């Protein structure tokens, strides 16, 4: 493996920045801004490794448009009832797995810690993101983001994006 080209470094940087912003918006409860990280025509799914590894497509969350992401957030704010909690994402390094023009496929490990009202923090969800990112514009955006989680026993409910 030789030294990366400047373009490869730029792509890697853009993808890592996008993932960091993704985590930041969720953890800081700026959820209304979160759908803007995705293309209008996009795919976002949160699926257990238990299903994914069996080539089963059943996901906990499956959205195939930015509109569905917005609907999830409006539902969270206005409709759904759940225990008060916050997330803290811990991200591993983002690696570019392949590049096709201005579209990169990346993989990033993550851990989501959850803190509830009682003040205890627990490992809520851990897994890997497999993303397709369009890095052509000034602001990179997800074409698709798949969170494949190891933690197949979900603690009570899942309402915030992973």
């Amino acid at each position: 493996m030789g030294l990366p080209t400047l373009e490869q470094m730029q792509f890697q940087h853009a993808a890592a920045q996008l993932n960091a912003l993704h985590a930041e918006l969720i953890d800081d409860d700026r959820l209304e801004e979160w759908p803007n990280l995705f293309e209008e025509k996009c795919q976002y799914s949160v699926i257990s490794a238990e299903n994914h590894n069996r080539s089963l497509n059943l996901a906990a969350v499956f959205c195939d448009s930015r509109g569905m992401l917005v609907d999830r957030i409006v539902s969270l704010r206005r409709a759904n009832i759940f225990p008060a909690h916050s997330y803290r994402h811990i991200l591993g390094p983002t690696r570019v797995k392949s590049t096709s023009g201005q579209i990169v496929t990346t993989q990033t490990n993550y851990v989501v810690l959850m803190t509830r009202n009682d003040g205890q923090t627990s490992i809520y969800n851990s897994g890997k993101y497999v993303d397709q990112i369009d890095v052509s514009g000034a602001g990179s955006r997800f074409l698709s983001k798949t969170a494949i989680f190891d933690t197949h026993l979900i603690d009570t409910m899942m309402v915030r994006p992973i």
Partner: protein
Amino acid sequence: MSIAQQQDTLDQAPSTAGCRVPYRVFTDRQYYDREQEKIFKGDCWSFVGLEAEVPKAGDFKSTFVGETPVILTRDSDGSVHVVVNRCAHRGALVCREMRGNRSSLECVYHQWAYDLKGNLIGVPFRRGLKGQGGMPGDFDMSQHNLRQLRTESVNGLVFASFSETVESCRDFLGPIVVEQIERIMCKPVTVLGDQRQRIRGNWKLYAENTRDPYHASLLHLFHNTFGLYRSTQTGKALMDANKRHSLLYSIAASNDDAADKQAYGDSRTFDTEFKLQDMSLLKGRQEFADNVTLVILAVYPNLVLQQIQNTLAVRQTVTYGPDEFELVWTHFGYQDDDEEMQAIRLKQANLIGPAGLISMEDGEAVEIVQNAIVGEASATSYIAMGGGRAEDADHLVTEGAIIGFWDNYREMVGFEVEPA
């Protein structure tokens, strides 16, 4: 009887109407232990899985009856079996994977091997090694099988029982439940995937929740918030003759706009502040001739079979202790689903499960009760909506099926448990 008349009845006899459940049954370990003995290992049939989860000879799935680990297997002759997942030798788990395929079950500790029915077929060094060791001369392999449960499949739903005396599974379920199982399991199914949810509350709070149509439009606000009028708001709440099981269902109202119905299932919008940006979430098909769009079939003690629009799933309760259980959702479709139908089911899956837009609240509903009743020795709940008796209703403003559950519980476990 009119509501006013019902109210009069309540006023006249306030002490007899309604059901009062002591909160200690949700928190006290003695009740939990007794439930394991009297319900899960007693005269009941527990749901263990779908035949479609073990389609081929040698397929197995690890699961639980109550808290007891069991294995569901498919034998080479095509029959399904359920055995306790515990080696007859020194008690180790025989099967340590969640699922897989094997020609026999072998304990890793000392390699005792069992066939897929649970019969002991191999004991290493049984006759010793070089004249040393070995099992006693009168050791009889046939006396050391895995504990084999009675197993019955009802249209692809597999149930198991520890009891030698309990009635047949179909009789235990009763005609109403069997009919509903036959309705949903009307053709070969294929598993779409599982979802697992850990809820920090007592499993019976979920048994109540799934027999409770009263809370549906009050706790689950997704449809209301987005102005999605549900023409399925009329429905019925029925029980089997023994009132163990509960059937809640609702029927789509007759509709004059067939094209719109095709596009949006049973949903209609009315003016609200919020609109769904992407209505494709609710796109579905009318796949049952009876126009029923919602079925919540709560089968005593540990199963819910459900149809919500085009989502089909079983929910299995696994108990961890008095204040914790796991809910396993296994989604399925039909083997003859076309590509579009598969896509509909996978998208509508957003509605149900731990991240379900219309179901995620149930975990919280269980936990807020559990958190509030901690340490409570004598106080009780009060369950009386719909008249306060275990009666069927042709509406959904009732808690009758919850009372049916408790009548059975009181008989099997009791509200008073002797101190250990």
